[in-house]
């Protein structure tokens, strides 16, 4: 069996599972996001009265942090009341940040666990050797009521990334390149394992970006086998004990793909789909109105640090906005304590409170018709960050910072 299958088998109380089988699994961490009040509605619509395993439930006030309309405020108010009444394990309020980063910061994302959150980017937790998957509100209500969720055991493919990744090219470029090569529907319903020397050389931050973006290929979950990097991160950090699963040597992947990234250059996902990927050099000098650094994909300390290294002692271009949204309170504090925050603010950055902010087009930095944004986020769908007539280019944090500096798309490698 694959490590992912072993996780499902254990959570279903079975000795083994097979591809395509439907199993009913006990969930280790159940996360709810503040934009899905339907979760609470569905909970009561099924006549549930008590949360089955409240200590496993984490409420995240991240998408509307802080509320920008009275409707959002009311949704959050109802969630807080629900948490109080049901004695849920954690309430991560509007001061904490984006769910996936908060999970990592607090050591809540652990190897061998089944992590289910009402957010499609829950694949991120594969970076820790967990089975992370996103669900909708009624699935979450089912978990709240019963502690369990049915899951189909997915086909599992392995993507091996090899070669020597050139300087100025990052995990985000690698994953955009992979998505561009395979297509947005390539991995629908599948588990995707990332392996190989390049992945082993990635930090936790880059591994999170890689697993996070696998959703944009349709993946059900992503996985990186925990190694010394994972253990070093979890040391003194993990919120509880954990058990690392390993894949049996005779496991047969549904497909094995290899990508050599030795010649890879910075990439862009161009408007308006994540799988329309091109070399950044094809879009040099395209003016940008807004550069956006943030989200569960590109708002970690390393992302802010590379931006600071590009912008130190410089000023962003006039008529260009540079929005920086740390993905969590910890990222914000670390940025403050290391001088990164000061560097970026002095360079002209607009800081937004740790949250999902404009990534999903609800508030805090939306785009007008006719505007262009280069963004370290995960989606460039029409209307994703505001007007349907705005253009969004997805890129690495370095490419975003370099574009902020020049007010147009430029090769970030010249600034590193």
């Amino acid at each position, binding site marked *: 069996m694959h490590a992912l299958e072993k996780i499902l088998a254990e959570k279903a109380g079975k000795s083994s599972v097979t591809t395509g089988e439907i199993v009913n699994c006990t969930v280790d961490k159940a996360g709810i996001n503040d934009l899905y009040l339907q979760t609470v509605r569905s909970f009561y619509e099924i006549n549930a009265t008590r949360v089955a395993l409240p200590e496993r439930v984490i409420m995240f006030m991240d998408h509307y942090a802080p509320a920008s309309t009275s409707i959002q405020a009311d949704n959050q108010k109802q969630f807080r009341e629900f948490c109080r009444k049901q004695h849920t394990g954690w309430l991560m309020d509007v001061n904490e940040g984006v769910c996936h980063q908060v999970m990592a910061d607090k050591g809540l994302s652990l190897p061998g666990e089944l992590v289910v959150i009402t957010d499609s980017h829950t694949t991120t937790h594969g970076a820790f050797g967990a089975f992370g998957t996103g669900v909708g509100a009624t699935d979450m209500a089912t978990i709240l009521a019963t502690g369990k969720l*049915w899951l189909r055991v997915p086909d599992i493919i392995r993507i091996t990334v090899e070669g020597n990744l050139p300087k100025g090219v990052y995990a985000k470029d690698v994953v955009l390149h992979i998505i561009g090569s395979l297509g947005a529907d390539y991995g629908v319903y599948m588990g995707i394992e990332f392996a190989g020397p390049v992945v082993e050389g990635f930090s936790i931050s880059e591994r999170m970006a890689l697993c996070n973006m696998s959703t944009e290929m349709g993946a059900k979950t992503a996985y990186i086998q925990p190694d010394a990097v994972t253990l070093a991160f979890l040391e003194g950090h993990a919120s509880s004990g954990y058990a690392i699963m390993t894949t049996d040597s005779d496991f047969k992947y549904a497909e094995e793909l290899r990508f050599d990234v030795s010649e890879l250059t910075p990439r862009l996902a161009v408007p308006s789909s994540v799988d329309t990927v091109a070399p950044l050099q094809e879009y040099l000098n395209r003016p940008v109105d807004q550069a956006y650094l943030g989200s569960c994909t590109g708002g970690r300390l390393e992302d802010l640090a590379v931006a600071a290294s590009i912008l130190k002692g410089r000023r962003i271009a006039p008529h260009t906005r540079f929005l920086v949204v740390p993905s969590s309170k910890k990222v914000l504090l670390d940025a403050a304590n290391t001088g990164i925050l000061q560097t970026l603010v002095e360079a002209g950055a607009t800081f937004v409170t740790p949250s999902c902010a404009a990534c*999903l087009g609800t508030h805090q930095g939306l785009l007008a018709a006719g505007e262009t944004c280069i963004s370290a986020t995960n989606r460039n769908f029409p209307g994703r960050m505001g007007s349907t007539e705005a253009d969004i280019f997805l890129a690495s944090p370095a490419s975003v910072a370099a574009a902020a500096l020049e007010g147009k798309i430029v090769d970030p490698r010249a600034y590193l």
Partner: protein
Amino acid sequence: MLEQIIRGKVFPFGKNIDTDQIYPGRFVELTDTADVARHAMEGADPEFARLFSHGDIIVAASNFGCGSSREHAAITLKSVGAGAVIADSFGRIFYRNAVNIGLPVLVCKGLRDRVNKGDIISVRMDTGRVLNAGGETLGLLEPVSDYLLNILRAGGIKPLLRKQLASEKFA
């Protein structure tokens, strides 16, 4: 409930229709179904909610509903009365959400290329055939697993859970 014959007018869409097009993010704060219904497919076709009639059928190419986990995307299509959504494939969270609320989501590969806007088609759940107005077969549905069929037949997972929770209470 899952009808044995689903008959309606076709509203065709392309591939990778994401949840932001089905239900734009700025409306996610709305929770009442009447409000949610008003914005159906607004990101892809602002006229959709006005033109779509109860029982009409969405036919799309691959990866319909990719993107966000927002159940609003399924709720809005259910609320405008979609008889079914038929596609080459679906984004997995949208697919689960749709099944959970009893919106028939059906896979029929290649159907999108064989229909035009406004065509009347019939979906026969017993034979798995999709027919045009003249009774000719346009395509075959991929079989739905018994587990999911059971949920769709019940009109979604909520009635099943209500039953399960009630029986646990009195067990």
